[in-house]
């Protein structure tokens, strides 16, 4: 298994901890988790990327589309703790600027 997601409920948001590689094959799993949280009434999501070792355009799309769906439900999706090449892709694309978790989210 090259990819896993674990869910950690917190007071202000739900954390999704991603492990492994996010690509065309695995990005749909992230979308499914976001949908599950939204249907459970949890539209504030922080995606922890500390243990993510690869992220491509499919991953970027999953973050952006996830944030759109959360916004439509009155929440947001943010990303935090990217490392190495994952951080490089997020910064190059500009997605880090708009989706980085700041702690100030309403």
């Amino acid at each position, binding site marked *: 298994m090259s990819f896993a997601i674990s869910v950690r409920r917190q007071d202000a948001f739900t954390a999704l901890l991603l492990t492994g590689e996010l*690509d*065309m*094959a695995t990005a749909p799993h992230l979308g499914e988790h976001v949908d599950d949280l939204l249907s459970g009434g949890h539209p504030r999501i922080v995606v922890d990327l500390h243990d993510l070792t*690869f992220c*491509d355009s499919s991953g970027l*799309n999953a973050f952006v589309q996830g944030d759109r769906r959360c916004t439509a439900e009155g929440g947001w999706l943010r990303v935090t703790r990217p490392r190495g090449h994952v951080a490089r892709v997020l910064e*190059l694309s500009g997605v880090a600027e708009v989706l980085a978790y700041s702690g100030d989210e309403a």
Partner: protein
Amino acid sequence: MTDAGTPPADPDGVPGELIRRPFDRSGITDLRHAVAHCAAAAGLAGQALDDFVLVVNELATNAVRHGGGQGRLRLWRADGRIFCEIADRGSGIAAGSASGLDRPPPLSAGGWGLWLAHQLSDHLSVSTSPGGTTVQISAATTTAECGAGPSTSE
């Protein structure tokens, strides 16, 4: 593995060939790992290696998504460089579609793949027609050795 039997002989085959294989959606991750293995053995390292592998991944993803669901990849080394060619038999890139040269807006869904490929490769050429699209990239390497990759041909 997605190899469908022995690939036909190709007159374009070169002595430094490292990988030649077809791929589809289910084989993208394995393909990326095989390319990373061979590119590392060929001397790419650090950010240059990660960038090369991401570009190959984006081009293969485009082939699956827009090029008829599958493609063919060839990886070889020559003249101190490592080359990768990804070909599909889709309907080609329509005139007027995104060139991949302009960065998509940060909150756009889609359009990242070709942009990242241009951004992270120091050489990229695209040949497209109604019969399919072929993209070739290359990067300078530091050594000329490559151990037997998981999918070297012959």
